[in-house]
């Protein structure tokens, strides 16, 4: 069975600082990987996705993520965080023909002024 681990429940960074959110997955083959963001009281919005090819993927809002097969990781990064980035971030994995997504438990990001 596939699984996703987000080791950091809560991360606090200062505005303008760099950010890295960790995501590790467990799956026998190369999965489809996603990062979603959830603002308070909102649904989930897709930030970026990886299917194949270039292991560094660019997303919206200045985010990027790197797929590392050897580490089973798909970490999300942003060089300079803005106050509006404060939200909860979910890493997800999909592998089956049914397109089911398995999510990690999420990382809550707080941005200090």
């Amino acid at each position, binding site marked *: 069975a596939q699984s996703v681990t987000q080791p950091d429940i809560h991360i606090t960074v200062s505005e303008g600082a760099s950010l890295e959110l960790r995501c590790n997955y467990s799956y026998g083959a190369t999965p489809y990987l996603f990062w979603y963001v959830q603002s308070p*009281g*909102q*649904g989930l*919005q*897709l930030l970026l996705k990886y299917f194949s090819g270039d292991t560094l993927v660019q997303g919206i809002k200045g985010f990027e993520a790197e797929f590392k097969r050897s580490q089973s990781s798909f970490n999300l990064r942003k060089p300079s965080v803005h106050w509006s980035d404060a939200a909860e971030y979910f890493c997800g994995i*999909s592998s089956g023909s*049914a397109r*089911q*997504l398995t*999510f990690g438990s999420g990382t809550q990001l707080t941005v200090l002024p």
Partner: protein
Amino acid sequence: DAGITQSPRYKITETGRQVTLMCHQTWSHSYMFWYRQDLGHGLRLIYYSAAADITDKGEVPDGYVVSRSKTENFPLTLESATRSQTSVYFCASSDVGGSYEQYFGPGTRLTVT
């Protein structure tokens, strides 16, 4: 309005009552999903549907019933609500093809008293 909508957005019900959460999408996506979001668990899949009249269980289906008579609608019914079903419920949809991206509704906050 185009997109994916959920109703009601907020619902309070009593233990033992039946309640139905509605999900409607205007894209004619083949796949639809129901998730519940609980603190510390991220989002967990309840049921999904690959097409009209085709549904299947996800990770946490007990106590829930779904139907999909039309492509655009995917209602979720709690046949006899319990306090453990207090949660935020998200509906999502996905199209056929290579994307695997899921589009999420705004969520329904359900409280069972």
